[in-house]
């Protein structure tokens, strides 16, 4: 291009917006441009230290831009835990500038795991175990900031190997939290009869890692063949009368061709009431990936449509208004034997959940009730397979469906599909984090938006703090000379910056 060209050229992209993100190298908060090229959406940003970065954030610009009208006004929590000081995302959380309350709270009860997966956003390994007392005080704080908390999910690490998980589930129920979930790989459920019986008595909804139906998928994502274990655990859950939601981590060149089969499998399995697809988020441990071709929400929607023999169309998937609507889409299906009817075929969902371009509700006699019910379904706190969800489903589509089922059976006929794209340093968008409604509760009483927790450095900070606190107890079994040392806060070195001797993960 040495020749001088006097004709002006158009850029090969549309400049969509300017936002803020973080540098994938050093996590510094930097400006970021969102651009559209060839109907795909990319984020472009420059770190003064580490230069330019570009990565895809949505493979369908029309879907991405069209989702904006599903943005619902947020709800203000009863209390905030931090002040605005350094600006988003460095003041979590929640700070008074946050735009939404917590629909779904996660408590990571431990860092240890009975697997060692090559892909693990939580970087599970040796670290800490929360005590029951810590979890109780976190739950109390959650009730304090939410008043009427909907859902708590116990996660990890692997929560089922925490010896006090049953007590923790009971503690959440005792505090009137409507729905309790456990996020598990299912290994213990597959083999431990006594534990399964305990869980069946407590009856949490099981958020069940299930990445596909091929052993190769498990070898790549989980590091070992697990298909038999998964199947055994699911069958045992069904026998115990428990409900599971399949949760699939989807990675390019690994299992993008399995999204349809996973839905079909879930529809047939008696324990399964829904499927959640999560494009792999590249934090913690992950395999090599190309930021320009990573999996985004439209890839999974297209995958489901293409791989299920015409069961679905693109319009069956509707953005979720409570979080930032580019973060998640949901669909609900009414299942009766082999017949599967997506709820968006029965109702003009977008007329009810469009908060910007079309403010008038449809003329149905109970339009306001339908809208409330749909908001409940299209929410991060909707838990598949519960009576509450069944009620919302019925209320939303009552007149259009003849439902000859009793309340306890109706929920067995409703199937949820959710696609949730968690952010990592490549896709991190402050705008989305500011309205995030999934929060990780911490023992110091904060609720940190999930993607900020994973990408900005909170996870490492809190893990270090907790390991330091417990490390004294666990590192000193040989020096019993001073067993009370760990109770003395004066002996705990500064939790930040100092790498912990217990951190073994690379």
């Amino acid at each position, binding site marked *: 291009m040495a020749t001088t060209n006097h004709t002006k050229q158009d850029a090969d992209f549309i400049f969509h917006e300017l936002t803020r993100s973080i540098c994938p190298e050093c996590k510094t908060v930097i400006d970021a441009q969102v651009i559209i090229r060839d109907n795909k959406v990319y984020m472009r940003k420059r770190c003064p230290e580490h230069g330019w970065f570009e990565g895809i954030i949505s493979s369908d610009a029309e879907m991405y831009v069209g989702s904006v009208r599903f943005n619902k006004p947020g709800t203000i929590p009863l209390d905030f835990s931090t002040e605005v000081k350094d600006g988003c995302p460095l003041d979590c959380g929640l700070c008074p500038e946050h735009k939404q309350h917590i629909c779904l709270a996660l408590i990571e009860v431990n860092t240890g795991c009975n697997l060692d997966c090559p892909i693990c956003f939580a970087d599970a390994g040796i670290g800490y175990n929360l005590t029951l007392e810590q979890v*109780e005080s976190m739950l109390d704080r959650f*009730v304090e900031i939410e*008043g*009427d908390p909907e859902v708590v999910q116990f996660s990890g690490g692997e929560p089922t190997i925490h010896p006090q998980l*049953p*007590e923790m589930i*009971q*503690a959440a*129920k*005792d*505090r*009137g939290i409507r729905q309790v979930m456990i996020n598990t790989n299912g290994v213990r459920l597959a083999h431990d009869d006594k534990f399964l019986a*305990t869980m069946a*008595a*407590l009856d949490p909804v099981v958020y069940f890692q299930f990445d596909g139906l091929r052993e190769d998928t498990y070898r790549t994502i989980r590091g070992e063949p697990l298909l038999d274990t998964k199947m055994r655990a699911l069958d045992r859950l069904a026998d115990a009368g428990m409900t599971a939601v399949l949760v699939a981590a989807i990675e390019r060149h690994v299992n993008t061709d399995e999204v349809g089969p996973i839905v079909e499998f879930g529809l047939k399995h008696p324990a399964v009431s829904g499927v959640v697809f999560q494009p792999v988020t590249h934090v913690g441990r992950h395999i090599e990936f190309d930021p320009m071709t990573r999996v985004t929400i439209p890839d999974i929607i297209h995958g489901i449509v293409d791989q299920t023999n015409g069961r679905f169309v693109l319009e069956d998937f509707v953005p979720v208004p409570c979080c930032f609507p580019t973060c998640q889409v949901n669909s609900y299906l009414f299942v009766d034997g082999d017949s599967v009817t997506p709820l968006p075929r029965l109702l003009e969902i977008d007329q009810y959940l469009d908060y910007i371009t079309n403010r008038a509700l449809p003329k149905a006699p109970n339009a306001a*009730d339908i809208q*409330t*019910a749909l908001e409940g379904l299209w929410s991060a706190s909707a838990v598949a397979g519960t009576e*509450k969800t*069944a*009620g*919302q489903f*019925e*209320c939303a589509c*009552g007149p259009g*469906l*003849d*439902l*000859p*089922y*009793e*309340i306890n059976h*109706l929920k067995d006929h409703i199937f949820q599909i959710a696609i949730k794209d968690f952010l990592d340093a490549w896709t991190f968008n402050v705008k989305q984090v500011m309205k995030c409604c999934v929060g990780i509760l911490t023992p110091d009483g904060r609720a940190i938006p999930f993607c900020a927790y994973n990408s900005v450095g909170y996870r490492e900070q809190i893990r270090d703090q907790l390991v330091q606190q417990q490390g004294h107890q666990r590192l000193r079994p040989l020096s019993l000379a001073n067993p009370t040392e760990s109770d003395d806060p004066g002996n705990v070195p500064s939790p930040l910056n100092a790498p912990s001797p217990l951190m073994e993960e690379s």
Partner: protein
Amino acid sequence: MRVSVKHPMLNTYSAKICCADLYSSKLARLILGDSLHPGGLRATNRLGRAMGLQPGWRVLDLACGLGTSATALSRVFRCHVTGLDLGAEAAQTSRQRAFGDPIPADVAFVRGDAEMPPFRSGTFDAVVIECATSLFADKPAAIAEVRRLLRTGGVIGLSDVTVEPGTLPPELDSTVGMMLCLTDALPAGGYPQLLASGGFEILDRADLSDEVLSLLADLRNRMAIWNGLGPTGSPGGDDWPDFPPDLLDRVEASVTRGDIGYWLYVARNLA
């Protein structure tokens, strides 16, 4: 003994049993959920916090229903809780639950009349009465009994439905109205008065009327399900009453206006 004649069912012992059994019915659970009162365990915990329940306290849950609150209170606040209820199934279910529960709770259940509690004087550090005061036939006598059971300085925590005089929709002056504690409820100012004249010092009060609104919203969802069933059944069996279609709207309006509410009160035994 002063007997309220507003609701004839409440006058005799057998009617009380009937009333208690009604609360263990499918209908009651359908409307109220397992805790059998607005707000469920959230409201129970809030009451416990307001009362300042301390670990190791002996706590009585008067008219404990299915024992859901009693069991939760024992675990959340680490108290020794006794639940008293007249319903046969209530005592049985709660005992079974407490024993079958994977997480043990420090709770015992006794079948008996909440207005004549079979315990020695000064036995308890705290007494909880959720959504039951409104059902007592002789409220001052019941409060006097609570005072007898409490040690000096012991705490009573009371949450109940409030109805301002003359505002109740006539359709609710019925079984369902009684279930919702509406027919014999006091106005919001009536409970503190009841407690004060019974020798208690009011420590705290809070308006939980939002819980009634969310209960009504849940009820709306549940009824929508049953309405979808057509002729195959009714949600509460044969005793399911005929609701006028706009009844829920009108009750909601009453709550919004403040005619119907849900309040909690905490008071201390002065003697």
